[in-house]
């Protein structure tokens, strides 16, 4: 390729200033993105929405190739897989019977104890129209967005377990951050000890278990489910199984984001309830059986207790002759100027100025 006769005569001095400026600009973008990435998120969501129809078409042959590759690689162990599945099926049937019995038992106990029912879960079925694995990001794009009530933070599950959660929602598409992604952190519970922990992705196939509570007893084979802490993710979504990794632990995920085609976006509604308004019965004095203390003077209506200030002459005469009249008959109404305010039919009796007098 080299040739001595060729000379690069183009000046590069003119690029020095733009290069410096652009370098500073790039650093500024990183810093702004760290502080506030909404602008980029919106741009990404818009671009993905725009590309969604094309992605659906482009994705089909790749899915076919990927699925075929998967089938071919699995085809070599069909016999062993069949034997294993038959054994597993027989074992699961036993567990199914046990589960049905336990479920009815739990329902009976819940009705006896008047237990609070679990919060309602609804879900949106979405198709995977894209998935990408970059050095610093593992993501999946779904064909459901804000128009389908998909919101950032919602859990994404497939038939086997949790895949990740929504981190960006466009109008008709949404991006999923996978549990294996470097930026994924979710609170989990390790069963059966019910130990809290944090599941942290590090771009490996099995994410790490972090921040285990002191004294937590964890062993390989334990089940990991979402804890629901924070009120964003629903509790109890199956995630995976604990496996040992040197001194620490990792989680072998039940779901397989590389092959999932249809997923459910779980809408978890766990509204924060306002505390009940205390009544007079709830006051400590009343609860102790003592008579309630007299309210402070400022809280009592002036008409009942406080000596009325000397009213102006016109105001003092008006109520007495006029107020009873509308109650007894439907005679001609007095002139508006001399009519007092009519008593509110819904008002408590103590508010009626006539009765007070």
């Amino acid at each position, binding site marked *: 390729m080299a040739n001595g006769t060729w000379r690069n005569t183009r000046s590069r001095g003119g690029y020095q200033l733009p290069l410096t400026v652009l370098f500073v600009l*790039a650093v500024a973008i990183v810093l702004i*993105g760290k502080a506030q990435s909404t602008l980029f998120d919106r*741009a990404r969501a818009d*671009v993905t929405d725009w590309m969604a129809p094309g992605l659906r078409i482009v994705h089909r042959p790749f899915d076919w190739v990927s699925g075929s590759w998967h089938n071919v690689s699995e085809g070599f162990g069909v016999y062993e897989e069949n034997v294993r599945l038959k054994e597993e099926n027989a074992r699961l049937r036993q567990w199914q019977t046990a589960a049905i019995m336990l479920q009815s038992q739990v329902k009976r106990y819940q009705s006896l104890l008047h237990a609070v029912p679990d919060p309602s879960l609804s879900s949106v079925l979405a198709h995977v129209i894209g998935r990408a694995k970059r050095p610093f990001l593992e993501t999946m794009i779904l064909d459901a967005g804000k128009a389908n009530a998909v919101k950032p933070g919602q859990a994404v599950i497939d038939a086997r377990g949790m895949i990740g959660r929504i981190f960006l929602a466009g109008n008709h598409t949404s991006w999923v951050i996978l549990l294996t992604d470097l930026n994924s952190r979710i609170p989990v519970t390790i069963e059966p000890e019910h130990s809290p922990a944090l599941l942290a992705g590090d771009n490996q196939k099995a994410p790490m278990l972090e921040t285990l509570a002191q004294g937590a007893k964890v062993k390989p084979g334990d089940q990991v489910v979402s804890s629901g802490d924070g009120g964003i993710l629903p509790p109890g979504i199956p995630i995976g199984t604990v496996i040992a990794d040197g001194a620490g632990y990792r989680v072998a995920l039940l779901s397989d984001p590389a092959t999932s085609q249809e997923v459910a976006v779980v809408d978890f509604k766990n509204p924060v309830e306002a505390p009940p308004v205390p009544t007079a019965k709830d006051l400590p004095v009343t609860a102790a059986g003592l008579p309630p203390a007299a309210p402070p003077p400022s809280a009592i209506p002036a008409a009942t207790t406080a000596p009325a200030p000397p009213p102006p002459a016109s105001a003092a005469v008006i109520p007495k002759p006029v107020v009873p009249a509308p109650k007894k008959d439907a005679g001609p109404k007095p002139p508006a100027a001399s009519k007092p305010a009519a008593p509110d039919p819904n008002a408590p009796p103590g508010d009626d100025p006539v009765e007070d007098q």
Partner: protein
Amino acid sequence: MISRILGAVTPVLLAMLGVMIANLPVSFLGGIVPAPLLGLMPVYFWCLVRPDLMPPVWAFSVGLLEDILSGGPPGVWTLAFITTYAVIDRQRDVFAGLSGLAAMLGFAVAATIACATAYGVETLYYWRIPPLAPVMGELAMSVFFYLPVAVFLGSVHRRLVGPLRSDF
């Protein structure tokens, strides 16, 4: 006139096309094979061959597009592309003098600078060390794919822009 305009915009259009193809959210063989840095290849190629057709602002734009489409933190690849461009620009005579297998080695150096910059920015961004294996995989795939892509870019350059340096 049209051919001149076409020749002027071809490098950046090809770079942006490369970014779009590399970030096409499809899983090749179940995501085992990472996508190469297809956007960096035209930047490197034309920065050496015809730097007037690939000024720094185009390299910046290509990096920005890579950031938007890749879904990662904004500015990471923009900074990586600009840094790589600055190094190539300063050492253009050295890089341009490479031929054959050494030319691939030259691109490997450029891709290493880009990946190392992105890795460093990502480390500072999240304040933890990301795993090295995915970046190494992307670097390896980029170097592997550079040869066929460079042949294609050379062909496009001859047809739309003008003769290559090796044609003199």
